[in-house]
């Protein structure tokens, strides 16, 4: 019977008093497939009696191994069924408690969708536990896991060198791994890195101290998790209070409810509200249990201010002498979480603290190649990729660098069409150190930070319309039958499920026509132009405006005599036939339907039209 069980038996009130004062530690456990992750978690849960008897019974029955009481890896294996159902495998959370701490374990599967899962589990973790198979040593994955853990700002790293039993508890092997891996970790941002030789299967140095590894004097895995100091990890220096909800139960009470992101606030403190820049004093810190003199992160409280100041959800209350950066743009590392890649031209939603605002990517700087951890050129991000982006937002955010503040430095990106969470970002420190708050607020008040350009990207239009805009330019003499072809073509395209539109005005200046053609093509329409532009130079001008790659020229090559007969009123002089028409149709020989089919075949061949 453990000391705790004895206490429970004899003095439950004493036990409760003791357990009231426990800390909460969140950790994420990572490793490649078969490194022993499930076994390690199962071991911990089993030895700490965090597995219920009825569950344990099922595991016992399913155990086929000999030499161990149960197959520990089965305890956490809740994912099997889901794998079969084809459900996205993602982070599972487990809970256990000891007399020192309560633990929340984020268990992230090692294979499919790895980065996305690990990043999710790591986002709130205090400790990362990385497993290394003692036989295999430091692998590319081990480095990647450590890199991600560091990127996500996890302060403490525990490296469990597992399966020591399979290398005869060889100290040299352990030391070699430690040497190699701690060298690599020096370049990362952990506060501390600890190595422990472990056999998850046999329970050596997991909860119980190992008998076989006599040469090892450090803590066990649990011992480390119970004692690693985490209180200092909380940022208690920079007071940041994102206003979440305004409470107005009656005319005399106006409270700003929120969770303190970082720092400490005291009654009477002078505070500043962003973005207004107005200052006031904290009149009261309210909680359900009564008023408080001070409150600190991560408490959820309600602040009342001395003055009637405009302040609402999305605003941030800070101390005037210690402000976050207030700006409509920042650089950030972004992890892409969705199958649909980043569309740098599209506008997304960004959720940062309590604000949800429009954002756009102003630049994709590079991508981090996860096998080599090197920066490589990129113009988008695919699922599980990480890149450095410059982001512009519609309204300002009040942010800090992620490595200084894991709350005000973090954001997620939401697709404004599907509502899916598609990206997770960590803000980088700005180039300038000190921000002139007056100038920043002036800029904020001056107007939108987004360039006044379309927030709908070509890709989005393409997906909405199921087609891409293209200009079909019909060249030919007056009376050649251009306009007839145009309208028959328009109808035929429409019947095929496409959006097409004919432009056939007469008498407008060519520049106006070029603008209209370009506009319609941008909108994603198949734009059919039947216009009197006789010279090559004129047509080249329009082609130039619209863009060569989405301009198709059709030569309606009807016999000049016939054209003349059809339109005796028109001026037939000065027509320059195209040098290199994409397709030529001859209306004195072909019926108009055949001519239209020839054009459609060409459009289909080039991918503008879908015949299926």
């Amino acid at each position, binding site marked *: 019977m453990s000391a705790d069980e004895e206490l429970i038996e004899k003095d*439950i009130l004493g036990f409760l008093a003791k357990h009231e004062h426990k800390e909460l530690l969140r950790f994420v456990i990572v490793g490649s497939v078969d490194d022993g992750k499930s076994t390690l978690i199962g071991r911990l849960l089993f030895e700490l009696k965090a597995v219920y008897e009825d569950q344990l019974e099922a595991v016992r029955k399913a155990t086929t191994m000999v030499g161990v009481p149960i197959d520990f890896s089965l305890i956490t294996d809740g994912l099997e069924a889901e794998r079969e159902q084809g459900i996205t495998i993602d982070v599972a959370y487990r809970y256990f408690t000891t007399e020192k701490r309560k633990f929340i374990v984020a268990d992230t599967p090692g294979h499919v969708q790895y980065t996305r899962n690990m990043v999710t589990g790591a986002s709130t973790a205090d400790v990362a536990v990385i497993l290394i198979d003692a036989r295999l040593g430091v692998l590319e994955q081990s480095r990647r896991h450590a890199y991600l853990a560091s990127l996500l700002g996890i302060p403490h790293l525990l490296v469990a060198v597992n399966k020591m039993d399979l290398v005869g508890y060889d100290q040299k092997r352990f030391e070699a791994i430690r040497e190699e891996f701690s060298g690599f970790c020096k370049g990362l941002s952990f506060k501390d890195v600890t190595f422990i030789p472990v056999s998850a299967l046999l329970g050596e140095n997991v909860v119980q101290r190992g008998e076989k590894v006599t040469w090892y004097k450090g803590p066990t895995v649990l011992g480390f998790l119970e004692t690693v100091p985490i209180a200092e990890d909380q940022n208690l220096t920079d007071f940041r209070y994102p206003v979440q*909800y305004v409470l107005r139960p009656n005319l005399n009470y106006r409270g700003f409810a929120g969770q303190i992101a970082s720092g400490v606030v005291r009654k009477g403190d002078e505070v500043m509200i962003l973005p207004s820049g107005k200052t006031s004093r904290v009149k009261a810190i309210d909680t359900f249990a009564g008023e408080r003199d001070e409150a600190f992160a991560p408490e959820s409280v309600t602040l009342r201010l001395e003055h009637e100041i405009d302040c609402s959800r999305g605003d941030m209350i800070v101390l005037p002498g210690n402000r976050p950066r207030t700006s409509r743009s920042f650089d950030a590392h972004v992890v892409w979480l969705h199958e649909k890649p980043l569309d740098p031209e599209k506008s997304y939603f960004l959720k940062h603290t309590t604000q949800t605002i429009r954002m756009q990517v102003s630049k994709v700087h590079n991508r981090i190649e996860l096998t080599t951890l090197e920066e490589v050129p990129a113009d988008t991000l695919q699922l599980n990729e990480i890149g450095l982006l410059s982001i512009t937002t519609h309204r300002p955010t009040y942010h800090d660098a992620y490595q200084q503040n894991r709350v005000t430095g973090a954001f997620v990106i939401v697709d404004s069409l599907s509502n899916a969470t598609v990206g997770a970002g960590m803000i980088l420190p700005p180039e300038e150190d000190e921000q002139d708050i007056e100038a920043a607020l002036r800029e904020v008040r001056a107007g939108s930070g987004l360039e006044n350009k379309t927030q709908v990207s070509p890709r989005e239009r393409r997906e909405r319309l199921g087609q891409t805009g293209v200009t079909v330019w019909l060249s030919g003499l007056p009376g050649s039958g251009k306009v007839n072809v145009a309208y028959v073509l328009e109808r035929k395209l429409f019947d095929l499920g496409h959006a097409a539109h004919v432009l056939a005005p007469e008498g407008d200046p060519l520049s106006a026509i070029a603008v209209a053609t370009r506009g319609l093509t941008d909108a994603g329409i198949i734009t059919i132009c039947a216009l009197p532009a006789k010279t090559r130079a004129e047509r080249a001008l329009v082609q130039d405006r619209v863009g060569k790659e989405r301009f198709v020229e059709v030569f309606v090559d009807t016999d000049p005599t016939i054209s003349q007969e059809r339109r005796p009123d028109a001026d037939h002089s000065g027509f320059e036939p195209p040098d290199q028409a994409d397709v030529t149709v001859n209306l004195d020989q072909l019926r108009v339907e055949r001519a239209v089919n020839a054009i459609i075949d060409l459009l289909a061949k080039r991918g503008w039209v879908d015949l299926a």
Partner: protein
Amino acid sequence: MVEQKESVLGKHALTHLRQLEAESIHIIREVAAEFEKPVMLYSIGKDSATLVRLAQKAFHPAPLPFPLMHVDTTWKFRDMYKFRDTFTKANNLNLIVHTNQEGKRDGVNPFDQGSEKFTTIMKTQALVQALTQYGFDAAFGGARRDEEKSRAKERIYSFRDKFQQWDPKNQRPELWSLYNGKINRGESIRVFPMSNWTELDIWQYIYLEDIPLVPLYYAAERPVVERNGSLIMVDDERMRLHPGEKPQLKSIRFRTLGDYPLSGAIESEAKTVPEIIKEMLLTRHSERQGRLIDHDQAASMERKKREGYF
């Protein structure tokens, strides 16, 4: 003025319970701020009691900005109805009670229809009915991840389509405390602000905060019959006794409360919260054992979820 209880953790460190509390309050406020019409599902049990307390804390001194809703199968323990009515009245809570009227009219009951079918009609369907009828776009629930292995991956915001169906492929990653609450018209979410609490946390919190509970959680002499290895309380005259069954008085209590003919009691002498915690820590059986609906189909959780039970 209350001083923060001096903790052995140092001046500016929160205990695990206060951290869980702060996180839950944050979630409740987020939903109230971002959704048009939230509702809090209220099942009268200990998890609901804790959830309501957390909501009161979130909006104090203002009243809750959303109603509570009890989906009533009409087969709860009498003590539960009594507690529900006094509790909501004393706390000025706006309570909606919804019952599947067709089911009631057809006399659906746990004896004739069996637990599975009864639960589907009177609980699952009733809930979907109510959410649709009132047009709620967010429903708070007291479920926890530690309740059951298959819940370990459940999100805090769980998305439902227009038909209240849970689509496993359409759940969103949740990072930091940034919850994506964007939905389209007609869609909704279930929210579980206590996802990270364990059964022990709940009991410790109830103890610490002195949260009132239905007396059935505490041991007392009650009339029971033993059926398929479970102790079923004979709570009213609707209970159908099998031939030869005779109610006996036993000192029992319930770990979870639901429909009385479907709730298994345990023999116990624990009359206070600390005694309950003591019993719980010294016998390791998962809470769900007492829920007969789970005995029917151990692995049907996922399906239930899709149907909208959670």
